[in-house]
């Protein structure tokens, strides 16, 4: 428990975290507002095909916040200080205080998850009045099951970022890969055009948890990016499997690897 509090306090004292929290909390509402404004006329006329996505699309992009959170949680530990500061790394201090590596790993993973869950809930709380204000009675109903899916998606993504950074020990590669992949030009969307296997990639499968409803399935002819492929539960399980495998690998590597190497 003490290790967990320590991780929370370490995380919240990082300067970069405030950027992450700001993006995670505000970006979804802003994106949802822009999207609602852009679609308002179509929705009022009843011709919009994207009504079920309107509020949720922000949650798909606010994910940037938790990606930064997961990456920073690890990369800050491995940042090498200047040679004038004896070239130390925070991780050696952390391991001296919490001598069990597994305990440190778990404490950090739990801290990242808890902050992501809270952040996602905050983002949802901000989205609801925003869409209500712009669309009035036409605002899509935010269902609990889909919102729970969104919370899972955020937490899993944060954990993926956390595990990837633990493997690479620096933030640049995971940050680049994950940020590009969660943008409009995602690798998985591109790969899905080539092979059906791409639907089993973690982000594509994870989005199924909340982005696509059954009645929102577009006919295949439209070629929409957001065609549903799995059921929400299967999508969640696939993403969870990825997270479990990645975190397992990261835990083993972290347990066995020399810190200074």
């Amino acid at each position, binding site marked *: 428990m003490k290790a967990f509090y320590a991780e929370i306090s370490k995380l919240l004292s990082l300067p*970069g975290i405030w*950027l992450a929290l700001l*993006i995670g909390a505000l970006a979804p509402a802003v*994106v949802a507002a*822009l999207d609602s404004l852009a679609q308002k006329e179509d929705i009022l006329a009843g011709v919009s095909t994207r009504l079920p996505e309107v509020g949720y699309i922000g949650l798909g*992009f606010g994910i*940037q916040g938790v990606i*930064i959170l997961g*990456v*920073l949680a690890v*990369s800050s530990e491995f940042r*090498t200080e*200047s*040679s*004038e500061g004896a*070239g130390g790394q925070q991780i050696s201090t952390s391991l001296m205080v919490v001598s069990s590596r597994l305990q440190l790993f778990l404490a950090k993973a739990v801290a990242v998850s808890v902050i992501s869950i809270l952040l996602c809930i905050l983002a949802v709380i901000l989205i609801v009045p925003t869409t209500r204000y712009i669309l009035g009675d036409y605002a899509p109903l935010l269902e609990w099951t889909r919102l729970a899916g969104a919370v899972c998606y955020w937490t899993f993504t944060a954990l993926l970022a956390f595990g990837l950074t633990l493997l690479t020990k620096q*933030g*640049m590669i995971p*940050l*680049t890969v994950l*940020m*590009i992949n*969660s*943008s*409009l*030009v995602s*690798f998985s969307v*591109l*790969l899905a*055009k*080539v092979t059906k296997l791409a639907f089993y990639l973690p982000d594509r499968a994870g989005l199924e948890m909340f982005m696509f409803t059954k009645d929102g399935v577009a006919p295949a002819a439209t070629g929409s990016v957001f065609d549903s492929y799995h059921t929400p539960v299967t999508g969640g399980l696939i993403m969870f499997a990825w997270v479990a495998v990645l975190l397992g690998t990261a835990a083993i590597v972290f347990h066995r690897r020399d810190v200074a190497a």
Partner: protein
Amino acid sequence: MSVSSGRKTIRVLRAELDKLMTLPWTWTAVTVTFLVHLLLTAAFTSASLQEGAAVPEILNTGLASMSYLQAGFIILGILAACSEYTGGQIRTTLTVIPWRGRQLFMKHLALTLITIPAALILTASGVLYAGWRLGGHAAGVEPHEIIQALLGATGYLTLTTLLSAAVGALLRRTLPALVILLGYYFIISPWSRGLLPAYFPDTAGRYMYLPPSSGELNILTPVQGAGIVMIWTMSLVAIAIVFYRTRDA
């Protein structure tokens, strides 16, 4: 020993080139970008082969991965600027080269010298690959169109690298610079396309390499696009130099 000003400048340039060439990350970034680019081009090519119905265009397919490719060059630019600030190298640099404006300018010049060949090889390999795979199916392309598109793409990537280096020099830290630039190029800009006028560095830059017959509304000519990106890059480099001269290292 007194050295003439021109000789001094050349020495600074050589020192900056040396530093960039020996930075392991430079080569990692370029190599990884190259491999990812080939993979993506392969994916785009087979996707456009599968779509079948429409006649695929070699240039469009070969340059389709440009939007991903720029990430590698953004990283290259940020690393060139921010690597000075890890481990206190900046103090050594400034002790040896106390002319700050000239030093930062020469760093950008050295970066340009490295980026231009790298970007040219990368873009040309993509177009070559697409041309080879699509050979029989594609619509014909004039050689001068290919050359123009390749020059535009190379110029765009080089200017993007320089812009990232300037932002990196302003922020002095790798991760925040990376978050801001990737966030802009990959999240904010694609989202706001259509809302904002085409005067931002990436939207204007698209006109530098996209072939004019792509069916979209062409607001800018390639030269206008290049001019706009150049103005953005130049002003950011200038701002970076002004701050660099006055700020405590």
